[in-house]
């Protein structure tokens, strides 16, 4: 940079110097030559006049002397051109001089001159001739000749001085160019370094120059631009981080497609929703990433209508999630359109909706069954189809039984809804586990005796108390014991045990009953869920028992665990937290 600038300046100086020398040469050289030649000419003419004044014939002997004084060669020629005398050469060897241009000119005008290259001494010679007259008759010519060496020498001398001057000028130019280029380059150089650092992303402050010329203005502009740029970058970063914070913290899943329909961005929420079922989907197209016809159709629809599209899609094959997706376009640059998809996880909502619909359907079904029976029997009696008192009594008994079942169902439903709404107040007190069982067992004993089922109460006396609502605890235990008796064949057994585990009191009721298939265990506790639909209804259940127990256990801060083996029996474990009792 600096070198370049220096060379440029130096070169321009040199051009100026050379040009001026050339012009000088052009203008001066000829001028000097002309002036000097005419000066020599007039000098020679003066000498020639002097010679003329005296008698030429006498002069011929003194020619050599004249030649020495005048510094020239003197030749005397007669009117016909014959050389009479010469200061340097022997007359006899010299040819006729009549045709010489200077003599011809002199014959016509009285004096003449000529510049010729002399072969004999090898330099340019100036010849000057005048006529010698007597009575206006040309009697002869006097010719003086002098080599123009002097002129050449003088010119050369002048040129030497000029060259010397030029050299000095060049040297000066070199020095000036150096200084000048340095002064000029220094601020540019520092600006260059500054911008270079800026380009590499180093933190830069601002640039200060000591000059006050145009470069100063430039530096000020650079400083202004840097400030502007940095504030813009900061602003952009802030915007970006704001956006990222919004995207990452929002609960909706966000997916952005770039102009080529490839996935450009997926936020954390969406990754969580999909539970890594699709691997890395960045850079893929929708179809490549999800393989979902419904999603692709929604996207097609969006592409066709260019209006926001709302759709519900199910993604994931292992763990399906139902997502409501809205597709809309994002314009950030003109001509560059991106597509944003916002996903909302509605799996739970859908599940709840399904549960609600099922619940209503179940309740209706459960209520309708006994009602149909009651209405049927009552209609039969009303129509008088049977008159036998025995039949009527039987019909009324059945109707009553069904009505009772209806009543139980409604009561159970009420209990459940109360628990769910949190309207049931539990009156916590210290309840002895043994007492609890002793209160509950008699309520199911009658049934057990009929089925010849042995209830083995193995609860120790010295067990601690649990913190519970006495009536609800009894309800829980009766429910479980009732189930145990109900689903155990004749001559079976029910074992009751109690112990402690992980800060919990554990009450275990094990039966040797029919058990529950493994895949169904998870669903126990769902409202109206029955493993064997027909059978359990025959046994008089409402399908709500375990559901109530589950909710009551949650209200007690405990939990229920069911293990079962088909055909072998079921073990129900009730966990009550111990923390309230340990204060003793």
């Amino acid at each position, binding site marked *: 940079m600096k070198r370049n600038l220096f060379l440029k300046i130096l070169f321009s100086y040199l051009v100026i110097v050379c040009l001026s020398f050339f012009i000088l040469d052009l203008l001066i050289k000829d001028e000097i030559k002309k002036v000097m030649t005419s000066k020599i000419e007039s000098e020679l003419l003066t000498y020639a006049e002097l010679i003329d004044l005296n008698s030429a014939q006498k002069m011929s002997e003194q020619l050599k002397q004249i030649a020495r004084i005048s510094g020239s060669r003197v030749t005397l020629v007669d009117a016909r051109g014959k050389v009479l005398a010469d200061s340097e050469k022997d007359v006899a060897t010299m040819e006729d001089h009549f045709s010489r241009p200077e003599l011809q000119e002199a014959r016509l005008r009285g004096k003449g001159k000529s510049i010729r290259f002399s072969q004999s001494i090898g330099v340019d010679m100036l010849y000057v001739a005048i006529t010698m007259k007597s009575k206006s008759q040309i009697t002869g010519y006097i010719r003086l000749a002098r080599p123009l060496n002097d002129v050449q020498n003088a010119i050369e001398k002048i040129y030497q001085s000029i060259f010397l001057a030029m050299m000095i000028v060049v040297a000066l130019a070199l020095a000036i160019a150096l200084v000048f280029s340095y002064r000029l380059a220094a601020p540019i150089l520092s600006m260059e370094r500054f911008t270079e650092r800026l380009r590499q992303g180093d933190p830069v402050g601002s640039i200060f120059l000591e000059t006050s010329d145009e470069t100063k203005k430039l530096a000020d502009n650079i400083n202004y631009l840097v400030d502007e740029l940095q504030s813009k970058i900061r602003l952009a970063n802030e915007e970006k981080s704001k956006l990222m914070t919004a995207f990452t913290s929002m609960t909706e899943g966000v997916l952005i497609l770039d102009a080529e329909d490839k996935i450009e961005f997926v936020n954390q929420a969406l990754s969580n929703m999909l539970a890594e079922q699709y691997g890395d989907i960045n850079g893929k197209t929708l*179809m*490549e990433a999800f393989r979902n*016809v419904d999603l*692709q159709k929604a996207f097609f629809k969006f592409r066709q209508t260019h209006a926001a599209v709302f759709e519900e899609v199910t993604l994931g094959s292992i763990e399906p999630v139902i997502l409501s997706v809205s597709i809309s376009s994002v314009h950030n640059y003109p001509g560059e359109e991106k597509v944003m998809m916002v996903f909302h996880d509605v799996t739970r909502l859908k599940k709840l909706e399904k549960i609600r619909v099922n619940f209503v359907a179940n309740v209706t079904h459960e209520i309708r069954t006994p009602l149909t029976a009651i209405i049927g029997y009552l209609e039969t009696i009303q129509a008088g189809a049977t008159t036998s008192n025995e039949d009527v009594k039987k019909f009324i008994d059945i109707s009553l039984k069904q009505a009772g079942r209806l009543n139980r169902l409604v009561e159970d439903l009420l209990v459940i809804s109360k628990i769910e709404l949190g309207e049931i107040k539990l009156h916590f007190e210290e309840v002895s586990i043994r007492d609890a069982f002793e209160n509950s067992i008699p309520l199911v004993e009658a049934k057990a005796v009929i089925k010849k089922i042995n209830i083995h109460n193995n609860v120790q006396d010295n067990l601690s108390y649990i913190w519970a609502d006495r009536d609800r605890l009894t309800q829980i235990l009766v429910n479980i014991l009732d189930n145990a008796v109900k689903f155990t064949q004749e001559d079976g057994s029910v074992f009751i045990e109690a112990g402690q585990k992980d800060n919990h009191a554990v009450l275990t009721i094990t039966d040797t009953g029919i058990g529950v298939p493994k895949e169904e265990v998870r669903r126990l506790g769902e409202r109206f869920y029955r493993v064997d639909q027909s059978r359990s209804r025959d046994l008089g259940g409402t399908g709500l028992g375990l559901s109530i127990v589950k909710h009551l256990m949650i209200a007690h801060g405990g939990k229920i665990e069911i293990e079962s083996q088909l055909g072998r029996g079921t073990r129900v474990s009730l966990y009550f937290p111990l923390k309230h009792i340990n204060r003793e």
Partner: protein
Amino acid sequence: MEEKRHTSSHYEKELQEIKNGLIYLGALTEKAIHAAMKSLSERNSDVAHEVIQADDEIDGLDTELEEKCIQILALRQPTAIDLRFITTAIKITGHLERIGDMAANIAEKALLLIEEPQLKPYIDLPRMTDLVAGMIRDSLDSFIRKDLHMAQKVQQTEQVIDDLNEQIFRELLTFMMEDSKSIHRSLMIMQVSKNLERIADHAKGIADMVTYMVTGECVRHQTYPLDEKEPA
């Protein structure tokens, strides 16, 4: 696998379109198979009708994709891997179209089976369906990713499907021998199972084509070590 980009972005886009179209077609057939099996196991005739109707869409997409492929062949004159890609794509659409037809077949059988009481709970058929759908998915995955390993997985799963088909066949045979009234239903179910088995064959066909596309080596009509155990 890192893919090289073509200089012509338009060409690149055309290839991507074909790729997307194939996956879409694959997803459609996959959905059709699942829906057909759902209509059978849940005895839902509405779903069955939907599957039969959806086959038209599959057929339409098949012709559309094939035309696109031929257009690329004519206009772009692809070479090497691109040429194999296009020719493979043409063959794959054919396979997928046939799979769509078979899903419709299953749905038709389901419509007939719904009319009659259920012969037995379906356990193996849904399992087979899941496996077959997985094969289609994997075979297309292997195509998109040019993944030989995945293609081999599909080629091996085909044997499992054959075994399941055999098992269902034997089971239904006992039903038919016990009760002649069950023959009609048994035959239907057998056809469903046969259709699934043929879908698996097509999925394997796709996987074979992928092997050809990636290696340039033809592996169709070859037997695998697993095949040899099978008594002819």
